[in-house]
C-alpha cells in the first residue's frame, strides 16, 4: 500500500475507530436485546438477530449495542426483543419477524419513536447476575 500522509492517517483512524468501540466500554445510545432461549430460537430469533445486525450495518450504527438474553418467560409470544434507549425505560416487543424488527430499528432505535403496535410493555423484570 502507498505510504500514508498525515491526512491519510487521520482518515484511516476514523475508519477503524468503530471497530474497537465495542471493547472500550464507550457510550451507547441504545441497547437491543434479542431473547434467545430455546423457545426464542425455535420461534425464529435467529432471523430477528440477522435482520437487526443487517440494520446496524446498513446505518453504520456502532453506537447501538446488540446483545442476547435467555428466555423472557413469555414463550408463547416469541420471538421477542427489548429496546432500551439510554435514560429511557426498556420496551419489550413481541411476535416479531424480520420486517417488524427492521421497522423497530428504524423508528424506535434510530428515530426514538416507540412502535406501539408491536410493543408489549414498558419496563423490565429486575435482572442481576
Amino acid at each position, binding site marked *: 500500500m502507498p*505510504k500514508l500522509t498525515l491526512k491519510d492517517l*487521520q482518515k484511516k483512524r476514523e475508519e477503524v475507530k*468503530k471497530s474497537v468501540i465495542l471493547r472500550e*466500554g464507550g457510550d451507547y445510545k441504545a441497547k437491543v436485546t434479542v431473547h434467545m432461549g430455546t423457545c426464542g430460537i425455535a420461534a425464529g430469533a435467529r432471523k430477528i438477530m440477522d435482520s437487526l*445486525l443487517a440494520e446496524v450495518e446498513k446505518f453504520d450504527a456502532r453506537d447501538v449495542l446488540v*446483545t442476547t438474553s435467555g428466555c423472557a418467560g413469555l414463550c408463547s409470544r416469541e420471538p421477542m426483543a427489548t429496546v432500551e434507549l439510554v435514560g429511557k425505560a426498556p420496551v419489550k416487543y413481541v411476535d416479531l419477524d424480520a420486517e417488524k424488527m427492521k421497522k423497530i430499528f428504524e423508528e424506535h432505535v434510530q428515530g426514538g419513536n416507540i412502535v406501539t403496535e408491536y410493543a408489549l410493555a414498558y419496563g423490565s423484570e429486575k435482572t442481576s447476575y
Partner: protein
Amino acid sequence: MASYRLNIMICAGTGCVSNRAFQIREAFDKEIRKNSLEKEVLTVMTGCNGFCAAGPIVIVQPEGIFYQKLTVKDIPFLVEEHFLKGRPVKKFMYTPPKETEPIPKMNDISFFQKQVLIALRNKGIIDPEAIDDYIARDGYAALSKILSKMKPQDVIAEIKKSGLRGRGGGGFPTGLKWELARKAEGEQKYVICNADEGDPGAFMDRSIVEADPHTILEGMTIGAYAIGASKGFVYVRSEYPLAVERMHNAIAQSKEYGLLGDNILESGFNFDVDVIQGAGVFVCGEETSMIASIEGKIGEPKPRPPYPVEKGLWGSPTNINNVETWANVPAIILRGSDWFSKIGTKTSKGTKVFSVAGKIKDAGLVEVPMGLTLGEIIYDVAGGIHSDKKFKAVLIGGPSGGCLPADCLGLPVDYESLTKAGAMMGSGGLVVADEDNCMVEMARYFLNFTKDESCGKCTPCREGNAAMLDILTRITQGEGTMEDLDLLEDLAHAIKDTALCGLGNTAPNPVLTTLRYFRDEYIAHIKDKKCPAHECRQLNTYTIDEERCVSEGHGCDVCRRNCAYDAIMGEKGKAHRINQDKCAKCGVCYEVCKFAAVKVD
C-alpha cells in the same frame, strides 16, 4: 466491515499462551461457526491482561464479562450459553477469596480497580498484531502532532515538563537525557529501546512489548525526532520469542504504512528501527554492555563517562530508554505534560508497572500510580499472601534491589522513598516472601544469580560477589561466625563503591537490606545453628511425634517407605522414629506425612 455484537478478547500474553490460549481460540472459533455466530461474534487475541494468576483469561466485550481459568472443554457450553443465549456463565467467573458470589465484570474486580493505565493503556483492547487497532486507539496521533506542529526542542521541553523519569531502574529524568543527546555533537545519532529484562520474577517489559509493540515504536520515533536520530534498535532477549515476533511484525506494518522509514508522513523526517536479539545475558541490560553487544562485541561494560548520550553506539551519541519509558511517551505528547504530571508524587510522576510474583495470591502485572504504598499493591491489588500466611518481606527491584520488611508496607512507591529504605525501584519486579522463606537464603539466591551473571571484567564484582556468596552459603549450612557479618558488610560496601557497572554496584543490595532488616535471622543461623523459616534444611532436625503417629495416622508407614536413607524405623500400625545419625535432612518425611506427626525444628 461486519458489525459484530460481541468481541471476545482472549489474552495472548506468554502466561496465558502457555495455558493454551491459542487452542482456546481455535475452540471458540469452531463453536462460533457451529452456532452460526461467525458474523456476530469476533475473537481477538490481545496482549497480557495482567491477571496472570487467573489465566487463561477471556473478556467478553462490550459487557466486560471476565472469564478465568478456561479449558478447551469449557468452550462449547460457554459459547452456547453466553454468546447464543445471552446468559453469562457464573462458574467460569472470578470469585474473590472468602466470598461465594462471583464477580461478573472485570472492572469490578479489586485487582483492576486501583490500576491506572498509561503504559498499558491498550492492553486487552487491541490486537498487538494489528496496526489498525492501535491507530483506532489514537495510535500514531502523537507522532502526527509532533511532525506537524512541534519542533524537536518543543518535544524535549514537553517531556521535561511532564517529569517522566527512566523506568528501567535509575530514574534519570528522560527529558534531560534527550536534551543531552540532542546537544551532543555527531552527525549520526541513535536511539535504543532496552527490552533486555532479566531479573528473576520480572516480566513488565516483556508484557508491554507483547501487548502493544506500536506504542514503543511510536515513542522511539518521537524520541528520535527530538534528539535528531535516524536509526533505532530494540534490544530484546531471545528468551522472549513472542515479544521478538510481535516487534518484528509491528515494524513491518509501520514500514508499510510509512510510519517508519524515509519521509515519515511526508514530513521529511527519516527513521528506521531494527530488532537486535540478545543472548539472555543479564549484564547486557546495562547500557554500555548493550552497546557493545549491538556492535557485535562481547557484552561487557565500559567505564562511564563518557556516557552513551555523548559517545555511545559506534562512538555516536546514543539515547537508551527502557520499554516502559518509551511506552509513556506517546501518551504524554498526546494528552500533555500537565495531565501526566498530575499523576503520582512530587518527585515521581505518572505510573509504574510492576510484576508481582512469589508468595502472592493474584500474581500478575499491574500498573499503579506512583505513591501507592507497597501494602496497597500487595494486599489491595494483588490479593495478599498465598494461603493466608504471614507476610515477611518483599524484594523490590530484583537482584539489584532490596528486601523490605513488614514495617515498610506503608512506604509509598516512588524513586526516593525506596532508595532511602535501601531498595530501589529497579525495573519493577516485586517478589513477595512469606514466613516460610529464609531471608539469608533469599539473599544467597539472588547473589548466586548476580555472581553467575557477572561478566568478570572488574575484580570487585567477579571476586567480591563470589566471596560474599561463599560466606552466605556457609551461614545457610550452619558454619558461619559472627565475624562473617562484619566481613559481609565490608565486602558489600567495597563492591558497591568500586564495581565498574550497575550490576556490581547494586549486587550487594539484597545482602545489605537483609542484614539491616533481618539481622536476627542471620544470628539464628550462626549462634543457634537454626533456620527460623526451616528453609535451610541442613539446620533442621526432624522428629516424629510418636503418639500422634499412632493416634492420628495409625502408623501409616508412608514416611518410612519414602525415606531414601533408611533413616526411619517402624512398621505399619506402630509408632515410627527417625534415626538422627542416618537422617540426611531431605524433609521428604515432613512433606509426605498427612497427619502432621513429623515435626521440624
